[in-house]
């Protein structure tokens, strides 16, 4: 989510995800905690597959 090839990205991604998960659990329903995390992941994958801070080049160079 933060972006591959960026260590800062992983930290930021973790922060945002954790806070959003807890907020959903508190305000909406604890059952939907994981659903929100997955929705955010899908959203990021669809909108900007390289991640928030990632660059497209890193994505292209990195082969799994």
């Amino acid at each position, binding site marked *: 989510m933060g972006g591959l090839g960026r260590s800062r990205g992983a930290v930021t991604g973790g922060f945002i995800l954790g806070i959003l998960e807890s907020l959903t659990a508190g305000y909406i329903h604890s059952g939907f905690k994981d659903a929100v995390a997955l929705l955010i992941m899908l959203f990021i994958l669809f909108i900007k597959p390289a991640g928030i801070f990632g660059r497209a080049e890193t994505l292209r160079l990195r082969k*799994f």
Partner: protein
Amino acid sequence: MGKGNLIALLILALIVFLSPQFTDDNYLLTIGIFTGINALVAVGLTVLMGYAGQISLGQAGFYGIGAYASAILSLYYGLPVFLSMLFAALIASILAVILAIHALRLKGHYLAVATLGFGEIIYIILNEWGQGGPSGFGDIPKLSLFGYTLTSTMEYFYFIWACILIIMIFSINLLNSPTGKALRAMHGSEVASLCCGINITKLKIKVFILSAVYASLAGSLYAHYITFLSPSNFSLFYSVLVLMMVVIGGMSNIWGGIAGAFIITVLPEILRGLKEFDILVYGLILTLCLLFMRKGIMPLIIEQYRKWSSR
């Protein structure tokens, strides 16, 4: 339709027709029915993975939508079962379009993760909003066609396998048509097939719909056979199981789906006699299959047959 496919269809039809003649044991017939239901999902995934080269770990989501939509429509809105199955397939295909449009840009691992996320979201929604929550609901009407209700296990067995035969004929014809050739070209190289004038966007959406409809049909058949649904059958584990069927059976051939479904469904039942060691042996057999038969069982059989016939 090629000669090999025709022979395979005839053999399958013969097996399906004859096997209930030897046994009227409901236990064995039920295993046969489950093999059929799993085979339907696996064939859809084979077309998607083996022919179009798109991976999906969200088949359990479509399977669950098919089951829940069909069950709720027929139980609470009083629709005939046949119509509610069609509506369930329609709902699944609409969701498949939404998923496919967004997942078009993704490839490989990213596509796998995206479809996995989709499947898991469906599972969570079924758990929270589904009828009866995690403990599920029952009293789903049995399957009925033109006023005749299927009640015995034998009738279900024949009905489900007849559905599969029809769907196999449809799939084989589709894969031999220009659309099927375009799918294989897309698997080989997207850029090259684009240059040949193939509309990749449309094709990807279509093949996603196809696999979703197969999974949804299987789900509705499951719901109306068991007449009880709970979300635990539609978790990520089922998606992985279907993936396993396709890989074990062989991706490169559409018959691999059926072979894989047969093995994965029947194997735990055979190993049941081993008591607590069954999972261990099950895992060992599957690992050995993947280590020594990379391409899967069906391509291996075909290769052996070719060697034998050319001798």
